[in-house]
C-alpha cells in the first residue's frame, strides 16, 4: 500500500467532498458524500492507493410509518420524510475502513457508476441495482447477478416493503 493506512490520511484526502464525518468504531471512518461527488471521492482514494474496494452495501431507509423498522436517516420533523436508499462503499486498507455513504431518495435513486475507476465493482453494482433498485448510469453490465431472469421488473427484494409474493411465482 503506497499511502499511509490511517484514518487521518483518509480524512484529509476526502475533505473536499465530505459532508460529514463519523467514527462509529475506533478503526472505522464514515464519510457522507453526495451522489454527485462520489466519483471524485473514489478517484481520490484510488489515486492515493488508499486500500481497495472491499464491498458495496445497500441499505433501505423507508419513510417512517411505511415500515416497522426505525428510521435512521432523515430528520425528526413533522414534514413527510421520503424514504431513501443508501449505498455504502467500503474501502479497506490494512486494518482500517473508510466507508463512503451516499443517500438517494426513492423518487430519484441515481448514483453514478464507479466502474470506470474500479472495474471489479461491476459485480457489486449489479447486485445493488437488482436488489435495491438503484440506478447506476455508466455501469458496464446490466445483467442480473443473483436474481433469476424471469424475476418481475420493478420488484426489489431487499427493500423493506417487499415481504414476499402472495402466491408462488409461475415458473
Amino acid at each position: 500500500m503506497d499511502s499511509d493506512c490511517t484514518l487521518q490520511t483518509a480524512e484529509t484526502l476526502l475533505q473536499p467532498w465530505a459532508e460529514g464525518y463519523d467514527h462509529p468504531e475506533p478503526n472505522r471512518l464514515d464519510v457522507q458524500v453526495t451522489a454527485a461527488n462520489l466519483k471524485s471521492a473514489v478517484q481520490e482514494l484510488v489515486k492515493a492507493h488508499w486500500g481497495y474496494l472491499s464491498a458495496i452495501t445497500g441499505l433501505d431507509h423507508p419513510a417512517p410509518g411505511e415500515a416497522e423498522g426505525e428510521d435512521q436517516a432523515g430528520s425528526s420533523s413533522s414534514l413527510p420524510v421520503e424514504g431513501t436508499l443508501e449505498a455504502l462503499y467500503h474501502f479497506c486498507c490494512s486494518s482500517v475502513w473508510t466507508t463512503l455513504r451516499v443517500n438517494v431518495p426513492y423518487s430519484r435513486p441515481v448514483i453514478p457508476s464507479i466502474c470506470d475507476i474500479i472495474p471489479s465493482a461491476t459485480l457489486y453494482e449489479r447486485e445493488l441495482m437488482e436488489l435495491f433498485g438503484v440506478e447506476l448510469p455508466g455501469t458496464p453490465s446490466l445483467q442480473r447477478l443473483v436474481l433469476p431472469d424471469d424475476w418481475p421488473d420493478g420488484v426489489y427484494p431487499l427493500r423493506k416493503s417487499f415481504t414476499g409474493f402472495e402466491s408462488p411465482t409461475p415458473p
Partner: protein
Amino acid sequence: MEAHESKKFVVPIGPQHPALKEPGHFEFSVDGETVTDASLRLGFVHRGIEKATEGRTWVQNLYLLERICGICSDVHGTAYSIGVEKLAGVTVPPRAQAIRTIVAELERIHSHMLWLGVAAHEGGFDTLFMFSWRDRETVMDLLESISGNRVNYSVNLLGGVKFDIDEKQAGEIRRGLDYLEERTRHYMKVVTTDETFLGRTRGVGLMSKQQAELLGAVGPTARASGVERDVRVESPYLSYGEFPVNIMLETAGDLQARFVVRINELFETYRLIREILDHMPSGELTTRMPRRIPEGETISRAEAPRGELFYFIKSNGSDKPERIKVRTPSLCNWGSVISMAVGHKLADMPMLLVGIDPCFSCNDR
C-alpha cells in the same frame, strides 16, 4: 464484433456440466481451441439469505448463516459471531477463542485438501484426486470427533463455543496432523515436479500483481500474485493476535503458484494448530449475551479458505437484525477469471475456474 459473429463458436459450460460441482453458467467464445471472449452468469443457488436474516432473531441467524456454504460454514459463523459480539460489547473467554481458531484452521485444511482433489480432477489427474480425498477423511474424522458432524460443525455460539477439546481429542488431533503433514509434503513434491501436471499449470492463467490489485482479487489467488492480503495478518481476530500466522506469498501469479500457496498454507496451519494446542488457555467456554443487541453498525472480517469474508451487520436495538450484508471472497475473484480467460485454450478453462476455488453457494447466498 458483428463481423465475427459467424466465426464465433460459443461453448456453454454449465449450469449442468461435469466440470462444475455447483451450477453457474459460463459462455466461452472459441476460435478453434482458443478462447476469445468469456461471460458469466451466477445466481442459480440464490436463496435470499440476506433478506431471510431480517426476519429471524440473532441466534436463529447464526444457524442460517452457517448454511450459506458447506465448505466454509464455520468461518461464516465465526465472522457473524465476532460482529454481533462487538456490537453487544461482549468479550469471549480466551479458551473459546482458541477453540474457535482451531476449528477454523481445521476447516481450512479440509477446504484446501478438497480443492486439491477437485483441481487435480479438472486436470485429468484422477489419482491425485483420489489420494488427497482419502487423506481429507482424516480431517473430517477429527472434526467429527470434536463436533459430531463432518460438515457444518456448528461450533460457534453467540458468546462462545459449544464443544470443548479435551486432552484425548488434542492427542488425536496431533496424530492426525502428523499424518497429514507427511502426506502434504508428498503432494507438494507432485505439484512442483510432476511433468504432466506442470504442463497443465505452469504459465497458465498469469495474473500480475498490478492486475490482481486492480481486479480486487483476495485470498490465495491474490497471494499467488504477490499481493499481501490476509485478514489474519492485517487485522488479527480470534487468537491470531497471540498466535500469529506467516503470510504465504508467491510471485509467479500462474496456476502453479496458486497450488503452491495453498499447500504452503496447509503447512502453516499445521504449525499453528500445534502451537495453540500446546498453549491452550483454560477457562470458560461461553459468556452471557444479551437477547437484544444494542443499536449500531459493525464490520467484521474473517479469512475464509478462499479469501476475505466481509460481514456488515446493522442492528436497530431489537432482537432481530436490521441488515446483514455478506460479501464472500469468491465474488471478488470472478473478475480475475473473466479477464484471464481470454487468450487461453479451452482445455485450460476448467483449471482456470478451479484455480480461484470458486464457491457458488457463497456467491449467490
